[in-house]
């Protein structure tokens, strides 16, 4: 665009046409911004013409619908907010729009981010672009499918316990969860406030680095955003990785992992050795407690956060007396999984149970963090599969919520520790379904994680493969 070979209006028009054609096939979008997108594209073209261009200027992107976007519907994929138009942009969105990024679509997701398969949406399940009978992963499934199918160049989503990395892995794209606090959470529909992180999804780690430079940094609207200086991530991508010590936690290669996934990750480990890294077996002994810890802490914080949704000041108003108003609004407005998590959290926080569940889980969380702190004494990076299996069939695991909770087994520990973690495509299984590996670094070491991911992508071509949808 900066060479004036194509305008943002032309590019946006092409993306809008592609969304009109393929969006319904995948059920990836809740809103396509059509007119608003073209207005942003015209503003981007004007910025380019006046010499005020940035790599993100004029580039079409999409946003998970659990993130607030000014003047464009933000439903959280729940009936409760199906007509909610936020009066403000989330900070990360404001920063991208400040660079004249073009917001083309709002993406389907699990309702309020509750799920790992994108089957818990008021707007129906999202389909995996690699096999339309399978899930794309969740909760940011619409965003993963949209990026994989080139319905947008990149997507902005949210990851509480894997909601970016897990669907990125199942859909064959890159997904990044930065350190907790690196990106502002302002304007995100909160799930578990001590875990929620905003991050980007794209085809390449290079794009992720460019996005992070714009998204990251202190925000006065979010008291948990950290004041650390934001590095020049893109410039630092070519920093040396030779000699980097990579830890392979033995707990991540147990019985539940599919043979093709294990083989693909072993292949990635060999590539890392080719890049000059050294590989070491390590132990993260509390890994097997991460899911139980996560599924205590998250519903507790979640049920508290969701108490604000009473249909009083915005959302769908209930009927009857004051108490009945709350009950009828929440009953009608919340999907099944949201109700289930509110029930789990309310029970775990109720009198007589708080110590046994919430406090106990917070203590085990400390143990999980100590696992990582200990690991950083002997390694610089940790490499694992992102998910134990590839994309499963829509409906296959819907009846048993615990089965679906276990999908997060490899992404939950790093979430609890608040460390940066990147999912990068590293192969395909025998059915042609994508496989992702996860690179986990120490807190605030985003640059190192992105370096390794980028240099892996320079010597592999998994990320260049595209699903056949045309």
């Amino acid at each position, binding site marked *: 665009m900066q060479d004036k070979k194509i305008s943002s209006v032309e590019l946006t028009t092409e993306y809008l046409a592609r969304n009109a054609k393929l969006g319904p096939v995948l059920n990836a979008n809740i809103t396509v911004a059509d007119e608003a997108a073209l207005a942003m594209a015209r503003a981007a073209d004007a910025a380019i013409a006046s010499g005020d261009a940035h790599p993100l200027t004029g580039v079409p992107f999409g946003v998970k619908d659990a993130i607030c976007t000014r003047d464009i519907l933000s439903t959280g994929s729940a009936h409760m907010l199906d007509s909610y*138009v936020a009066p403000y942009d989330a900070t990360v969105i404001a920063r991208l729009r400040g660079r004249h990024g073009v917001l083309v679509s709002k993406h389907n997701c699990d309702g309020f981010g509750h799920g790992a398969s994108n089957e818990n949406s008021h707007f129906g399940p999202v389909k995996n672009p690699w096999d339309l009978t399978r899930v794309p992963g969740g909760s940011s499934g619409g965003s993963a499918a949209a990026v994989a199918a080139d319905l947008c160049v990149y997507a902005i989503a949210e990851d509480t316990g894997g909601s970016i990395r897990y669907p990125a892995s199942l859909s064959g794209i890159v997904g990044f969860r930065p350190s907790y606090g690196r990106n502002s959470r302002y304007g995100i529909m909160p799930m578990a406030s*001590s875990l929620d992180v905003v991050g980007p999804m794209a085809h390449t780690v290079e794009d992720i680095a460019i996005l992070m430079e714009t998204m990251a940094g202190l925000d006065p609207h979010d008291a948990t955003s950290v004041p650390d200086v934001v590095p020049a991530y893109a410039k630092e991508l070519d920093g040396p990785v030779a000699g980097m010590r990579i830890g392979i936690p033995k707990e991540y290669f147990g019985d539940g992992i599919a043979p093709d996934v294990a083989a693909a990750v072993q292949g990635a480990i060999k590539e890392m050795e080719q890049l000059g890294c050294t590989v070491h077996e390590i132990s993260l002994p509390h890994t*097997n*407690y991460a*899911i139980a810890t996560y599924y205590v802490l998250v519903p507790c914080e979640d*049920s508290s956060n969701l*108490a604000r949704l009473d249909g009083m000041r915005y959302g769908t108003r209930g009927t009857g007396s*004051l108490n009945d108003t709350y009950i009828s609004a929440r009953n009608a407005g919340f999907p099944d999984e949201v109700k289930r998590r509110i*029930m789990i959290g309310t029970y775990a926080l109720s009198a007589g149970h708080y110590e046994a569940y919430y406090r106990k889980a917070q203590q085990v969380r400390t143990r999980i963090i100590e696992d990582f702190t200990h690991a950083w004494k002997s390694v610089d990076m940790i490499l694992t599969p992102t998910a134990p299996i590839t994309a499963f069939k829509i409906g296959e695991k819907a009846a048993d919520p*615990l089965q679906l909770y276990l999908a997060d087994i490899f992404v939950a520990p790093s979430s609890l520790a608040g460390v940066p973690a990147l999912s990068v495509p590293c192969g395909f299984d025998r059915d042609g379904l994508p496989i992702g590996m996860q690179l986990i670094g120490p807190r605030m070491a985003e640059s190192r994680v992105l370096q390794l991911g980028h240099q892996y992508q320079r010597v592999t071509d998994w990320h260049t493969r595209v699903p056949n949808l045309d």
Partner: protein
Amino acid sequence: MELTPDHIRSIAALARLSLTDAEVEKYREQLAGVFAYMEVLNEVDTEGVEPTGQVSGLADVLRPDRVVETDATTRAALIALFPERAGDALVVPPVL
């Protein structure tokens, strides 16, 4: 742990949800399964371990307590979200 239908109904009441009998039974089974799974946490020795509430590394982040005016456009957008209104005022059901 034994979860009874009455447990489920009282949790639902606390959470301002009402459930059909079929939902009560479904959640009773599912929650019992989930809480049974969480028992694994008791395998971890946490004697004397500090609980982790947050991982930002920050403490006591404060801001000045002052009123900030909203611009007219944002004000209008906020009011437009009211499910029920009288002029610019939000209408709520009577408390008593």
